[in-house]
């Protein structure tokens, strides 16, 4: 299988399509892993753009941002699988993980496409630079959540335990966001300026 065709298949899965030929379990595993590895590269691009105010920050972000994304996903995934099992959802853990991987790929794809815009605004606008950088993250998170919900909804269509599967999606997304908040704080500074997210949960939800 050529890498190019694999990428095309990954895009097909991400937008909710079906693979042209009957696919094996090994092929699905390959695509899921490829989705995660591609997500790391794409989030690294955003990190470089968001940290372009200084060379040191930019270089640090090239590995910090992918690690933050990966660690958040790894922290949230076990809870999502447990929720899936406990609720007796009609979705296999492997299918949940696969949908999660492709949705992260979709989200980081949005991040990477917005990276040049974030970088140019960061250097040319004092008012819009930071809000745009944060906004691009929220857009990516919304996109990834939507893709994840849609992917799981399509896979469980017509199967019993549909609601339970979507509950597992909700739990997984909530835990991903909770983990992301703290990993971002731990890895800060990611954006040159101080944001509420630099202080993690304590600062974001401070009274």
């Amino acid at each position: 299988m050529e890498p190019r065709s694999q990428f095309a298949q990954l895009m097909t899965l991400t937008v909710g399509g079906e693979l042209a030929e009957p696919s094996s379990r090994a092929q699905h595993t390959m695509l899921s892993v490829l989705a995660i590895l591609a997500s790391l590269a794409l989030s690294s691009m955003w990190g470089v753009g968001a940290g372009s105010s200084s060379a040191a920050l930019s270089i640090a972000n090239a590995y910090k941002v992918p690690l933050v994304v990966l660690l958040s996903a790894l922290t949230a995934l076990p809870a999502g699988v447990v929720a899936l099992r406990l609720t007796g959802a009609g979705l296999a853990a492997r299918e949940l993980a696969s949908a999660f991987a492709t949705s992260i790929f979709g989200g980081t794809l949005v991040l990477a496409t917005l990276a040049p815009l974030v970088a140019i605004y960061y250097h040319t606008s004092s008012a819009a630079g930071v809000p745009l950088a944060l906004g691009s993250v929220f857009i990516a998170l919304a996109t990834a959540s939507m893709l994840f919900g849609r992917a799981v909804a399509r896979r469980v269509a017509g199967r019993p335990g549909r609601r339970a599967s979507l509950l597992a999606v909700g739990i997984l997304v909530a835990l991903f966001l909770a983990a992301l908040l703290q990993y971002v704080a731990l890895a800060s500074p990611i954006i040159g300026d101080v944001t509420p997210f630099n202080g993690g949960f304590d600062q974001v939800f401070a009274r």
Partner: protein
Amino acid sequence: MTGLGGHTADHLAAVWFVAAAFGVAAIVALVVIYRRAAAHRALEEAERVIEDAYREDAER
């Protein structure tokens, strides 16, 4: 000077180091899983080709 959760900068740096080590280990594991899946896929493909060849021979 304290940072997140009232912990020192050294403590937070150690936490980040451990977390990053887990992340790197996960990346290595993902690469291993990918290579194993690719090898399995190649075997499946070879089996399919052999099966098709036998079927063609049998039809002749």
